[in-house]
């Protein structure tokens, strides 16, 4: 589990567009060096997914061109009160997972 920051409102009105911003602390080692000698194996976060009450609302395939400490922002529509689960999956299979509650009011 790597350090991360998630910014989103805790409460929204039904039908509101909710903006969610995430930052993960990760070196994103590309596996390529300037000299062309591949001395460090690739070690990047290759997948990010956000699920809202079990349903995928945002998914990204991340490639080695993305800089270290990737920032991802996206929006969703507040439909019902539930947990939003954020999952980053990196090379080697390690996962960073965080869950936030979004409370939806009428």
């Amino acid at each position, binding site marked *: 589990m790597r*350090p*991360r*920051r998630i*910014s989103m409102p805790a409460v929204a009105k039904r039908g509101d567009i909710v903006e969610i*911003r995430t*930052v993960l*602390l990760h*070196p*994103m080692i590309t596996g390529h060096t300037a000299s062309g000698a591949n001395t460090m194996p690739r070690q990047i976060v290759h997948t990010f997914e956000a699920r809202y009450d079990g349903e995928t609302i945002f998914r990204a395939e991340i490639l080695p061109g993305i*800089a*270290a*400490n990737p*920032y991802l*922002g996206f929006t969703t529509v507040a439909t019902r009160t539930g947990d939003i689960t954020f999952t980053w999956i990196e090379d080697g299979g390690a996962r960073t997972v965080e869950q936030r509650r979004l409370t939806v009011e009428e």
Partner: protein
Amino acid sequence: MIRRLGLLLALVLTAPAAGLSQSADATRTSASAFLSGELRAEQEDDTRNRGLLWVDRGLDLWVRPDGARAVSCAACHGAADTMRGVATRYPAVDPASGDLLNLELRVNRCRVSHQGAERLADESEALLGLTALIAYQSRGLPVAVTIDGAQRRFFEAGRAFWHERQGQLNLACSQCHDDNVGRKLRGDTISSGLGTGYPAYRLEWDGLGSLGRRLRACQIGVRAASAPPAGPEQVALELYLAWRARGLPLESPAIRR
């Protein structure tokens, strides 16, 4: 030592009186002004500024008991926001030892003397976390270092260092950062050399780094032998930079290219 002699010689031979009089006021622009609008927006938005990852880390460490005495920073100082304003006064002379300390040195001295802990390595994630946390508490507050009393001789040393030609390229700090502020050096804009954004998230580093690390990068740039990390010359220079930045708001953790 050789460089110290060179310093004296350079002062005697070139006597940069013009540099002394013009420094500071005409050229005091935060490097934030030279960022693209996108990067400036990222810097000013805590939900996007990646430097905040280190502030979070610092907050974890702030409340964690450490060292032989098993006390946390918070046990003496209270909540981190009691540090508000502290970073505006650094570097500052430690009255007990008479040494000039920047935030990094101050944190480590506190660790050794009050926590009974090991000092944290320069540029370690833990030290950067704590200094970023402390500097962050003073975000937006004006730099307010003093250069009187015990600080005077350090200030003078820092000012001399600023005007000393160094390295194979034979350049003084002032030749770029007083005389050519805002002009281009290859793809980048020459800053006023104020340091108000540090510890800063630098894109070149893909992470947070101290002002000392940035200064060493400049010294490598002019192909000078760089001062040892946080040596007295470097901290004196940091004091001079802070004096140049007096009254300007602290911006740490800033985004820098």
